[in-house]
Protein backbone atom coordinates (compact mmCIF):
# COMPACT_ATOMS: atom_id res chain seq x y z
CA UNK A 1 0.00 0.00 0.00
CA UNK A 2 2.71 2.45 1.01
CA UNK A 3 4.80 1.38 -1.95
CA UNK A 4 1.87 1.83 -4.32
CA UNK A 5 1.08 5.32 -3.03
CA UNK A 6 4.72 6.40 -3.11
CA UNK A 7 5.19 5.06 -6.61
CA UNK A 8 2.08 6.80 -7.90
CA UNK A 9 3.15 10.06 -6.26
CA UNK A 10 6.74 9.96 -7.52
CA UNK A 11 6.28 8.76 -11.09
CA UNK A 12 4.98 12.04 -12.64
CA UNK A 13 7.89 14.00 -11.20
CA UNK A 14 10.40 11.48 -12.49
CA UNK A 15 8.81 11.69 -15.94
CA UNK A 16 8.87 15.49 -15.77
CA UNK A 17 12.54 15.56 -14.82
CA UNK A 18 13.22 13.18 -17.69
CA UNK A 19 11.54 15.55 -20.15
CA UNK A 20 13.51 18.45 -18.65
CA UNK A 21 16.86 16.71 -18.91
CA UNK A 22 16.14 15.61 -22.48
CA UNK A 23 14.91 18.97 -23.75
CA UNK A 24 17.55 21.15 -22.07
CA UNK A 25 20.41 18.88 -23.03
CA UNK A 26 21.86 21.49 -25.39
CA UNK A 27 22.25 24.10 -22.63
CA UNK A 28 23.04 22.13 -19.49
CA UNK A 29 24.35 18.72 -18.46
CA UNK A 30 22.11 16.02 -19.81
CA UNK A 31 20.89 14.94 -23.18
CA UNK A 32 18.86 12.41 -25.04
CA UNK A 33 20.27 9.26 -23.51
CA UNK A 34 20.03 10.43 -19.93
CA UNK A 35 16.55 11.85 -20.41
CA UNK A 36 15.39 8.65 -22.04
CA UNK A 37 16.70 6.57 -19.17
CA UNK A 38 14.95 8.89 -16.68
CA UNK A 39 11.66 8.62 -18.60
CA UNK A 40 12.00 4.85 -18.63
CA UNK A 41 12.72 4.76 -14.90
CA UNK A 42 9.41 6.53 -14.26
CA UNK A 43 7.55 3.85 -16.18
CA UNK A 44 9.60 1.09 -14.52
CA UNK A 45 8.62 2.46 -11.11
CA UNK A 46 4.96 2.03 -12.06
CA UNK A 47 5.76 -1.42 -13.45
CA UNK A 48 7.40 -2.49 -10.18
CA UNK A 49 4.82 -1.04 -7.82
CA UNK A 50 1.56 -1.61 -9.70
CA UNK A 51 2.24 -4.71 -11.74
CA UNK A 52 2.21 -5.31 -15.46
CA UNK A 53 -1.47 -4.55 -16.00
CA UNK A 54 -1.01 -0.81 -15.47
CA UNK A 55 1.55 -0.50 -18.25
CA UNK A 56 -0.12 -3.08 -20.46
CA UNK A 57 -1.11 -0.73 -23.29
CA UNK A 58 2.33 0.88 -23.39
CA UNK A 59 4.08 -2.49 -23.28
CA UNK A 60 1.97 -3.85 -26.13
CA UNK A 61 2.88 -0.96 -28.43
CA UNK A 62 6.47 -0.30 -27.31
CA UNK A 63 7.97 -1.66 -30.53
CA UNK A 64 6.16 1.04 -32.52
CA UNK A 65 7.90 3.71 -30.41
CA UNK A 66 11.22 2.04 -31.07
CA UNK A 67 10.68 1.85 -34.82
CA UNK A 68 9.39 5.42 -34.97
CA UNK A 69 12.50 6.66 -33.15
CA UNK A 70 14.92 4.81 -35.40
CA UNK A 71 13.30 5.91 -38.64
CA UNK A 72 12.68 9.51 -37.65
CA UNK A 73 16.41 9.70 -36.89
CA UNK A 74 17.03 8.58 -40.46
CA UNK A 75 14.45 11.06 -41.77
CA UNK A 76 16.11 13.95 -39.92
CA UNK A 77 19.44 12.92 -41.43
CA UNK A 78 17.94 12.82 -44.92
CA UNK A 79 16.35 16.25 -44.37
CA UNK A 80 19.83 17.53 -43.54
CA UNK A 81 21.07 15.95 -46.77
CA UNK A 82 18.39 17.74 -48.77
CA UNK A 83 18.59 21.15 -47.07
CA UNK A 84 22.23 21.45 -46.09
CA UNK A 85 24.08 19.38 -48.65
CA UNK A 86 25.46 16.59 -46.49
CA UNK A 87 24.10 13.90 -44.21
CA UNK A 88 23.04 15.24 -40.78
CA UNK A 89 23.92 18.83 -41.58
CA UNK A 90 22.28 21.44 -39.39
CA UNK A 91 18.86 22.33 -40.76
CA UNK A 92 19.19 26.02 -39.83
CA UNK A 93 22.89 26.86 -39.30
CA UNK A 94 24.00 28.49 -36.02
CA UNK A 95 20.86 27.40 -34.16
CA UNK A 96 20.49 24.42 -31.84
CA UNK A 97 17.58 23.03 -33.89
CA UNK A 98 19.39 19.83 -34.83
CA UNK A 99 20.40 19.15 -31.22
CA UNK A 100 16.84 19.63 -29.95
CA UNK A 101 15.21 17.41 -32.57
CA UNK A 102 17.74 14.61 -32.27
CA UNK A 103 17.66 14.83 -28.45
CA UNK A 104 13.91 14.26 -28.51
CA UNK A 105 14.21 11.38 -30.98
CA UNK A 106 16.98 9.69 -29.00
CA UNK A 107 15.10 10.18 -25.71
CA UNK A 108 12.03 8.50 -27.22
CA UNK A 109 14.13 5.68 -28.57
CA UNK A 110 16.12 4.95 -25.41
CA UNK A 111 12.90 5.17 -23.39
CA UNK A 112 11.22 2.61 -25.64
CA UNK A 113 14.22 0.29 -25.61
CA UNK A 114 14.69 0.30 -21.84
CA UNK A 115 10.98 -0.17 -21.17
CA UNK A 116 10.87 -3.05 -23.66
CA UNK A 117 13.83 -4.78 -21.99
CA UNK A 118 12.36 -4.37 -18.51
CA UNK A 119 8.90 -5.53 -19.54
CA UNK A 120 10.49 -8.59 -21.13
CA UNK A 121 12.54 -9.51 -18.07
CA UNK A 122 9.68 -8.84 -15.65
CA UNK A 123 7.38 -11.01 -17.74
CA UNK A 124 9.78 -13.92 -17.30
CA UNK A 125 9.87 -13.94 -13.52
CA UNK A 126 6.46 -12.64 -12.47
CA UNK A 127 3.59 -14.72 -13.79
CA UNK A 128 0.71 -13.36 -11.76
CA UNK A 129 0.95 -9.77 -10.50
Amino acid sequence: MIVKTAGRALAPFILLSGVYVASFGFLSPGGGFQGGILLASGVILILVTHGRKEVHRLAENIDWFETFGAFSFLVVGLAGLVLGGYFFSNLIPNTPLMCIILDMVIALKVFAGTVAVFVYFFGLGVNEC
Partner: protein
Amino acid sequence: MLNGLNVGMLTILVGLYGMTRTKNSVKMIMCLGVIGSGVILFFVSVGYVTGAGVPILGHQAEMVDPVPHTVMLTAIVIDLATMALGLALVYHLYEEYGTLDVTDYLGGED
Protein backbone atom coordinates in the same frame (compact mmCIF):
# COMPACT_ATOMS: atom_id res chain seq x y z
CA MET B 1 50.17 6.47 -9.20
CA LEU B 2 46.72 4.99 -8.77
CA ASN B 3 44.42 6.86 -11.10
CA GLY B 4 41.46 6.19 -13.32
CA LEU B 5 43.58 4.91 -16.18
CA ASN B 6 45.24 2.15 -14.16
CA VAL B 7 42.07 1.17 -12.37
CA GLY B 8 40.20 1.01 -15.67
CA MET B 9 42.85 -1.28 -17.17
CA LEU B 10 42.81 -3.50 -14.07
CA THR B 11 39.02 -3.69 -14.22
CA ILE B 12 39.22 -4.85 -17.84
CA LEU B 13 41.72 -7.55 -16.79
CA VAL B 14 39.54 -8.68 -13.88
CA GLY B 15 36.57 -8.96 -16.23
CA LEU B 16 38.66 -10.96 -18.74
CA TYR B 17 39.84 -13.33 -16.01
CA GLY B 18 36.31 -13.90 -14.78
CA MET B 19 35.04 -14.46 -18.29
CA THR B 20 37.66 -17.09 -19.04
CA ARG B 21 37.35 -18.87 -15.70
CA THR B 22 33.62 -19.22 -15.19
CA LYS B 23 31.34 -21.74 -16.84
CA ASN B 24 28.11 -20.05 -15.84
CA SER B 25 26.68 -18.11 -18.75
CA VAL B 26 24.95 -15.50 -16.56
CA LYS B 27 28.28 -14.79 -14.88
CA MET B 28 29.85 -14.43 -18.32
CA ILE B 29 27.33 -11.69 -19.14
CA MET B 30 28.14 -10.07 -15.79
CA CYS B 31 31.83 -10.12 -16.71
CA LEU B 32 30.92 -8.43 -19.98
CA GLY B 33 29.39 -5.66 -17.88
CA VAL B 34 32.56 -5.44 -15.77
CA ILE B 35 34.71 -5.14 -18.91
CA GLY B 36 32.39 -2.42 -20.20
CA SER B 37 32.72 -0.50 -16.93
CA GLY B 38 36.49 -0.73 -17.15
CA VAL B 39 36.52 0.58 -20.69
CA ILE B 40 34.24 3.47 -19.72
CA LEU B 41 36.41 4.39 -16.73
CA PHE B 42 39.57 4.23 -18.84
CA PHE B 43 38.22 6.37 -21.65
CA VAL B 44 36.70 9.02 -19.39
CA SER B 45 40.04 9.22 -17.55
CA VAL B 46 41.89 9.61 -20.85
CA GLY B 47 39.99 12.83 -21.46
CA TYR B 48 40.65 14.24 -18.00
CA VAL B 49 42.77 17.36 -17.66
CA THR B 50 43.96 18.22 -14.16
CA GLY B 51 41.99 21.12 -12.74
CA ALA B 52 39.65 21.48 -15.69
CA GLY B 53 35.89 21.80 -15.57
CA VAL B 54 32.87 20.44 -17.35
CA PRO B 55 32.74 20.77 -21.16
CA ILE B 56 29.94 23.35 -21.14
CA LEU B 57 30.38 26.96 -22.21
CA GLY B 58 30.46 29.57 -19.48
CA HIS B 59 31.57 27.40 -16.58
CA GLN B 60 35.35 27.34 -16.68
CA ALA B 61 37.87 28.48 -19.22
CA GLU B 62 39.69 25.17 -19.35
CA MET B 63 37.54 22.14 -20.03
CA VAL B 64 38.19 18.42 -20.19
CA ASP B 65 38.43 16.65 -23.53
CA PRO B 66 34.81 16.11 -24.63
CA VAL B 67 35.47 13.51 -27.33
CA PRO B 68 35.93 10.47 -25.00
CA HIS B 69 32.80 11.51 -23.09
CA THR B 70 30.85 11.41 -26.34
CA VAL B 71 32.22 8.04 -27.32
CA MET B 72 31.49 6.57 -23.89
CA LEU B 73 27.94 7.95 -23.91
CA THR B 74 27.22 5.72 -26.86
CA ALA B 75 29.22 2.85 -25.34
CA ILE B 76 27.04 2.79 -22.21
CA VAL B 77 23.90 2.38 -24.28
CA ILE B 78 25.49 -0.29 -26.48
CA ASP B 79 26.59 -2.11 -23.31
CA LEU B 80 23.02 -2.08 -22.01
CA ALA B 81 21.62 -3.34 -25.31
CA THR B 82 24.15 -6.15 -25.76
CA MET B 83 23.74 -7.32 -22.15
CA ALA B 84 19.96 -7.36 -22.53
CA LEU B 85 20.20 -9.37 -25.75
CA GLY B 86 22.71 -11.77 -24.17
CA LEU B 87 20.55 -12.34 -21.10
CA ALA B 88 17.52 -12.99 -23.28
CA LEU B 89 19.51 -15.57 -25.26
CA VAL B 90 20.74 -17.16 -22.02
CA TYR B 91 17.16 -17.46 -20.83
CA HIS B 92 16.22 -19.24 -24.05
CA LEU B 93 19.20 -21.59 -23.66
CA TYR B 94 18.10 -22.32 -20.09
CA GLU B 95 14.59 -23.13 -21.32
CA GLU B 96 16.07 -25.45 -23.93
CA TYR B 97 18.72 -27.29 -21.89
CA GLY B 98 17.67 -26.76 -18.27
CA THR B 99 21.15 -25.63 -17.24
CA LEU B 100 23.34 -22.52 -17.29
CA ASP B 101 26.64 -24.38 -17.75
CA VAL B 102 28.20 -23.55 -21.11
CA THR B 103 29.96 -26.93 -21.40
CA ASP B 104 26.59 -28.69 -21.36
CA TYR B 105 25.48 -26.76 -24.42
CA LEU B 106 28.33 -28.30 -26.42
CA GLY B 107 27.57 -31.89 -25.47
CA GLY B 108 29.22 -32.21 -22.06
CA GLU B 109 32.93 -32.47 -22.92
CA ASP B 110 35.19 -29.81 -21.52
